[in-house]
């Protein structure tokens, strides 16, 4: 049985960097272009996971477990955040019968 860090190290580090950069950019573009709150939410998750991936990759290459512990924290916090976020979206829907963020423009001067 191969150790997971060894498996990870079979792919060069550059690939991880480029891949998570791509993933992160897709997330950003999703957040910027879409108006549906749930899609925006998913894009945010994508960005988070891009970061997670990068952390795990570096942790394996450096043989330092700190990065992986960090990832666990991020996942736990993200789970809590999803619960709160989805609850907010539900409330928005109940109030204005839509989850289009473009219509949520009351919060201005």
């Amino acid at each position, binding site marked *: 049985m191969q150790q997971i860090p060894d498996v990870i190290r079979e792919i060069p580090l550059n690939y991880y960097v480029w891949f998570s950069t791509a993933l992160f950019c897709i997330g950003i573009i999703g957040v910027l272009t879409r108006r549906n709150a749930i899609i925006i939410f998913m894009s945010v998750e994508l960005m988070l996971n891009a970061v997670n991936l990068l952390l795990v990759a570096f942790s394996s290459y450096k043989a330092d477990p700190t990065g992986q512990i960090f990832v666990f924290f991020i996942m736990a916090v993200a789970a809590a955040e999803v619960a709160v976020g989805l609850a907010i979206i539900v409330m928005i829907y109940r109030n204005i019968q839509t989850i289009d963020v473009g219509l949520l423009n009351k919060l*201005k001067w």
Partner: protein
Amino acid sequence: MSLITLIPLFPLIGFLINGIGFRHVPKSLAGLISSGAAFASFACALTLYLGFDGQPQIVHLFDWITVGTLNISMSFQLDQLSLLMLLIITGVGTLIHIYSIGYMSHDEGFGKFFAFLNLFLFFMLLLVLGSNYVVMFIGWEGVGLCSYLLIGFWNKNSNYGDAARKAFIMNRIGDLGFLLGIFLIISNFGSVEYAEVFSKVVDGGYSSGDKTLFYITLLLFVGAMGKSAQIPLYTWLPDAMAGPTPVSALIHAATMVTAGIYMIIRSNIMYSLAPETLDIVAWVGLATALLAASIGLFQNDIKKVLAYSTVSQLGYMFMGLGVMAYSSSFFHVMTHAFFKALLFLGAGSVIHAMSDEQDIRSMGGLRKKLPITFITFLIATIAISGIPPFAGFFSKDEILAHVFEHNKLMWAFGVFGSIMTSFYMFRLLFLTFFGEFRGTEEQEHHLHESPIAMTAPLMILAVLSAIGGFFNLPHIFGGHASLAEFMAPLFAQSNIEHVAVDESLEITLMIVSVVAALLSAGVAYFVYVVKKNVPLADGQESGLQKVIYNKYYIDELYNTLFVKPISALSNFFSGVIEFLVIDLIVEGVGKTVKNLSSEARLLQNGTTGYYIFAMVLSIAVILVWSLKSFLLG
């Protein structure tokens, strides 16, 4: 609690009850409370006087200000001077309170009036009781405030308000001098307690004519000028007659205006070592006495005549102080309090009977309708004119005798002033009470003698005016000069060297001034009773008479010299400085920020996508910025 502390406490309590309970305390009670408070103080003062053993007492209440080595305490001092002042203030004050119950009975602000009167008594008592200059200053300011409140008592008339402001401002000018004097005392002697300051003056080896003492005494005298209405700060007093008549009697004749004299007598040790200041005091007093008396000759308002007469009599007192005749001046303060209060109250009784008419040209023949007022007014007139054996004769002649020792020319002017005094007072008496009635029929119909609350004080004061002179009967009439003897310890350290006046010379001087006074009374009788002259209507005077009638245009002069330049300066400041500095710079900063932010807030447009875009863009910028060395190599 000692009796000394009770004396100012009673009027303060009276003020609080009437002031806080104004409109709730019934009228009958308000007058009673106030008069009761005044009388209680009088009773305390009298008890203290009877039990006084000649030793000054100091009652320490609490330490008030302690800065470094300077300690200013709230404490009272009881000695010969403050005792006599207490008796005058509370005694005359009580009578005037009682009188006011009758005089003000129809007034809406009855309770307020009594509250103010009591507050005045409180501050006046504080002024004379304080054992240091700072407590005196509190009282000094307090009586100024009460004077302001009471002159403008009928505040619906804006002229009265102006008169009140004038009095206040004039007094403030004087107060500044007083305050500077106190500062100078602190910096030189490190204390404000009378006892300490005076012992330092005595032990400090100051020679006569010392510069420090000269400046201190001069500054204190500036304070006295304001409060006691001397040239050049006297113009407020005649205008102060806008207040209700009892106020004129209490504050602007009998008590408050004598505060300056009290202060100089209190500081006599310093004054006696400053002969230059004494000269200034004497000449200012003489000039004031003459100027005011000459203006009094042609005034037609009954209260204005009395006001100028007050200014003139105060001038005599200062003249006496200037020649170091301190006890004589104080004697005059006392007799003046009696007869001037009586004159004002009598005038109030006349005004009351005449339905608020104050012009003596519309009076005449009142002696049959107002017999009590007439007789008491007559006594006061004789007293102020210096005709024996009434009070004014003794005190005025004592001052004049001391002036004669000092300077013969000054004495001649003084006698000339007393001739004018006699003339204008008898003119007032004859025009008011003799001849035919000149008012309207309606006024004649309403003529009535005043109620007992008003006539009783008149009668008491008349008795005092008649016999007041015997309190200090000079040796030549077989008296003991008991007042002077009583006050002697106050001046023990002053080294006053009086040349004993030759008795025959003193009698000659007296005869001269009495004959002069009688002659001018006779002239007044001839002009206004035998010839039945009535002063001309306004605007018909000519020549010198017109100048005097218009008070030598002093008010106009002050207006041009001080008021107009200052208001021009104020206009300049409000027009230019206000516009350029305040509006343009100070407000400009605020306006710029406000304009900028009203543009900037448009950034916050409420669209979520826009915010996110801004956020991402910012992150990108930060990223590029922090990685710039890495990216650019």
